[in-house]
C-alpha cells in the first residue's frame, strides 16, 4: 500500500473536521475500552500473563531464524509448501503464480493486514483472479471502492450504520435496511455464493506454531473457517515474526489476545490448521501454502526497536490512544494506525516517509500499560525521534529552536535573562487580559485554545526579592 503518512497533518485536519467520523470514533472507543477492562479482570494473574507473553515472544525473536526453520520443517512434513517473500511485490508474485498453477479464478479472503501491505487485491485482479473480501468489515470497504481499513481488527470502525445502509442499498441494489441483523444477512447471502465458488482461500495468520507447523486464526465471523476449508487451495500470508514455539505458548497468547482486542474471553472461532487434507479427511484444502513475509521485519531484528516485533496485533494501543481516538486510523496514512503504527510505519516504509508519526503522540503511556506483550511504545516513539534528530530529518527551525533553548537552559545567567524577557513579552501579548489569543512564538497552541497569561514575574525574581 502506498503510504500517505507524509500528509499526516492534513489527513488529521480532515478527520477533525468530520463530525460523522468523530461520533463513530466516540461510540467505538467506549465499547473497546470498557469491554477490555471487564475481560482482563477474569484472569487474576493478568500482569503475570503479560510478562509470560512478553517472554514467549522475546524467546522467538532472539532466535527467529531457527524457529522459522523449525516451522518450515514441520509445516512441510504435513504437506504444506513454505514460501518466503522479501516484500509486498514478492507476495503478489507468489500468489499470482500459485493461482496460475492451480487454475484459480476467484479467491475468497479472510482478514489479512499483510495483503494490505502488499496491495494484493490489485495484483490479483491484474492476474485475472477476482479477490473477494469475506470479513464483513473488509467486505464493506471493498464494495466502497476499495477503501483502506482504519483499524487493524475493526477495519470499518470509522463508518456509521447509516453510511453502511446507504452503501448496501446502492451496491446490492436492494431496499435500504437499517437493522444490523438484516444488513449482515444480506452480506452473508452475497458471500455464501463466493465461498462455494472460490478456488482459493487467502487468510492471514495470528500465530504460526513451530512444533506442529500450524497456523492459528482468531476470528469472530466464521468466514475464516469457510475460507480455509472450502476452497481447493489455501494460502496463508503472514509476517515472519508471528511464529511461536509450541501449542502451549499459543494457549497463553490466546488468553491475552481476544481480551485485549475486543474484550472477549475468547473469540467466537479459534482455528488451529495443520497440513493439507489427508485421504481420510473430508474437508480442508488440497494445497496449502505459507507465504512468510519480511517486508522490513528482518531489519528490525537485533536493533533497539526489536521489542516492536512482539506485537500480536490486538489493537488495544489504538483503542486507548487519545490521538487515534481523536483522528481515526486513516490519518496515519499507511496500513497500521495508532501507536503501533506510528512505530511500524517509519520502520517499514522509511523514517523520512513518516516524519510526523513518531511525534504525533503525547507519550501518555496508556498504550504501554495496556499492551498485552508489554511493548514500551512511548519509549520506541521517543527513540524514533532520536533517530530523526541524528539523521537531521527535523525541520531547520525546530532544530534551531532546540539548539538555542538547550544553550540557554544550560546557562543560569542566560536562562534568568531569557525568562525575564520571555515573561514580559508574554505579559505584553496578553495586553492586560488573563489569556493570549494568538501566541506568536508557538502559533499552533492557539489554533484551538487560548494560552493563559503568565503572572508577570518569574519565580526566581520574586524569590530573590523575598530573600532580601
Amino acid at each position, binding site marked *: 500500500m502506498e503510504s500517505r503518512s507524509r500528509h499526516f497533518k492534513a489527513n488529521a485536519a480532515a478527520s477533525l473536521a468530520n463530525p460523522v467520523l468523530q461520533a463513530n470514533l466516540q461510540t467505538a472507543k467506549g465499547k473497546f475500552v470498557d469491554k477490555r477492562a471487564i475481560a482482563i479482570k477474569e484472569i487474576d494473574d493478568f500482569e503475570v500473563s503479560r510478562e509470560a507473553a512478553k517472554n514467549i515472544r522475546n524467546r522467538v525473536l532472539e532466535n527467529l531464524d531457527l524457529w522459522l526453520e523449525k516451522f518450515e520443517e514441520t509445516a512441510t512434513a504435513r504437506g504444506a509448501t513454505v514460501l518466503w517473500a522479501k516484500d509486498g511485490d514478492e507476495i503478489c508474485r507468489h500468489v499470482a503464480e500459485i493461482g496460475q498453477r492451480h487454475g484459480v479464478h476467484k479467491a475468497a479472503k479472510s482478514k489479512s493486514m499483510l495483503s494490505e501491505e502488499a496491495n494484493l487485491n490489485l495484483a490479483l485482479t491484474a492476474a485475472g483472479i477476482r479477490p473477494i473480501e469475506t470479513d464483513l468489515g473488509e467486505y464493506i470497504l471493498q464494495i466502497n471502492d476499495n477503501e483502506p481499513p482504519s483499524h487493524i481488527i475493526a477495519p470499518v470502525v470509522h463508518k456509521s450504520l447509516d453510511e453502511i445502509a446507504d452503501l448496501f442499498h446502492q451496491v446490492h441494489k436492494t431496499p435500504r435496511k437499517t437493522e444490523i441483523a438484516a444488513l449482515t444477512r444480506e452480506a452473508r447471502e452475497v458471500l455464501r455464493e463466493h465461498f462455494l465458488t472460490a478456488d482459493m482461500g487467502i487468510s492471514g495468520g495470528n500465530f504460526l506454531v513451530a512444533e506442529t507447523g500450524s497456523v492459528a486464526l482468531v476470528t469472530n465471523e466464521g468466514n475464516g473457517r469457510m475460507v480455509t476449508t472450502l476452497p481447493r487451495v489455501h494460502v496463508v500470508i503472514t509476517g515472519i515474526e508471528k511464529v511461536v514455539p509450541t501449542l502451549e505458548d499459543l494457549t497463553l497468547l490466546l488468553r491475552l489476545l481476544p481480551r485485549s482486542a475486543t474484550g472477549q474471553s475468547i473469540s467466537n472461532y479459534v482455528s488451529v490448521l495443520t497440513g493439507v487434507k489427508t485421504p481420510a479427511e473430508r474437508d480442508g484444502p488440497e494445497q496449502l501454502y505459507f507465504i512468510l513475509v519480511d517486508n522490513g521485519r528482518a531489519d528490525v531484528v537485533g536493533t533497539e526497536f526489536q521489542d516492536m516485533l512482539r506485537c500480536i496485533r490486538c489493537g488495544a494501543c489504538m483503542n486507548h490512544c487519545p490521538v487515534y481516538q481523536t483522528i481515526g486510523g486513516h490519518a496515519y496514512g499507511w496500513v497500521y494506525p495508532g501507536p503501533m503504527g506510528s512505530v511500524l510505519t517509519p520502520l517499514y516504509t522509511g523514517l523520512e516517509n513518516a516524519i510526523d508519526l513518531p511525534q504525533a503522540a503525547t507519550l501518555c503511556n496508556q498504550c504501554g500499560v495496556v499492551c498485552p506483550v508489554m511493548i514500551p511504545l512511548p519509549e520506541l516513539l521517543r527513540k524514533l525521534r532520536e533517530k530523526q534528530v541524528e539523521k537531521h530529518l527535523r525541520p531547520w527551525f525546530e532544530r534551531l529552536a532546540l539548539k538555542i533553548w538547550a544553550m540557554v537552559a*544550560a546557562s543560569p545567567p542566560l536562562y534568568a535573562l531569557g525568562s525575564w524577557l520571555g515573561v514580559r513579552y508574554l505579559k505584553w501579548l496578553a495586553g492586560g487580559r488573563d489569556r493570549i489569543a494568538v501566541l506568536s512564538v508557538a502559533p499552533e497552541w492557539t489554533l484551538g485554545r487560548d494560552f493563559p497569561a503568565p503572572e508577570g514575574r518569574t519565580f526566581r525574581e520574586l524569590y530573590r526579592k523575598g530573600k532580601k
Partner: protein
Amino acid sequence: MRVALFVTCLVDLMRPRIGFAAIELLEAAGCDVIVPAGQTCCGQPAWNSGDRTAAAALAKKVIDEFAGSEYVVVPSGSCADQIRNEYPVILADEPEWHARAVELASRVYELTDFLVNVAHIETLPGNFSGSVTYHDSCTGLRGMGIKEQPRALLAKMSGVELKEMAAAEECCGFGGTFSVKFGEISAAIAAKKCGNACATGAQTIVGGDLGCLLNIEGKLRRLGDETTQVMHIAEVLTAKN
C-alpha cells in the same frame, strides 16, 4: 528534613505562586526548604524531542546542583519522572554519571507523594472551600504512581468536595512539544477532558502538572467557559478563603 525544591521552568515562568505554595506546604510539614539558585529545566523537552546530547547535559547540571540535598521535591509528576526514571536511562553509557543519577533518583519526589509518604504532613496551611475534580496527569500517574496522594491531601480539607470525573486518567492532550507541533489535535483532545471535567459540576479543576493545567484552562476559555477555575494542587492546599 532538608528539602531542595526543583521549581520547574514552567512554574518559574508562568505560575510562581505554585512554587511559593510548594515551599509553604513543605515548611508546614516541618521541612527546611532551599531553592538552588542555578536551576533551570530538567531537560525533558530535549529528551522527548530526541536530542540526547542536550538532555544529558541538563541531566548532569541537575545532578550537580542537587548533589548535597537530603530530598529533592518537584511540584510536577512529569519533571519528577524525568529526574527519577529517565536520567538513569539517558546516562546509561557513562558509569559514573549513571551511578549519580541512580543516587539522585532515590531522593527525588513529586510534591504530593513527598507530603503524604515521606513528610507525613498532618495539618495543611490552606482552608480552600468548594467542589473540585482531579485530573490525573499521565506521567505522574503512570510513571510515578501519583493517584491517591493528592486525593488524600484534599480529603484533609473539610471544605473540599471531590467530584471524580469520567476518564480522569485519560490524557488531556498536552504532551509537551506535541501541544505546539499538533495544536489542533492537542486542543481537540483537551476539549474532551474539559467536557468530562465540567460534567461533574465542580467549580475547580485541579491537577499536579502545570503543562496540563495551562492546556485545560486555555481550552476552557476558548470554549467560552469563564467560570471554571483551574488550579495546581499546591495552590488549593494553601488557599486561604
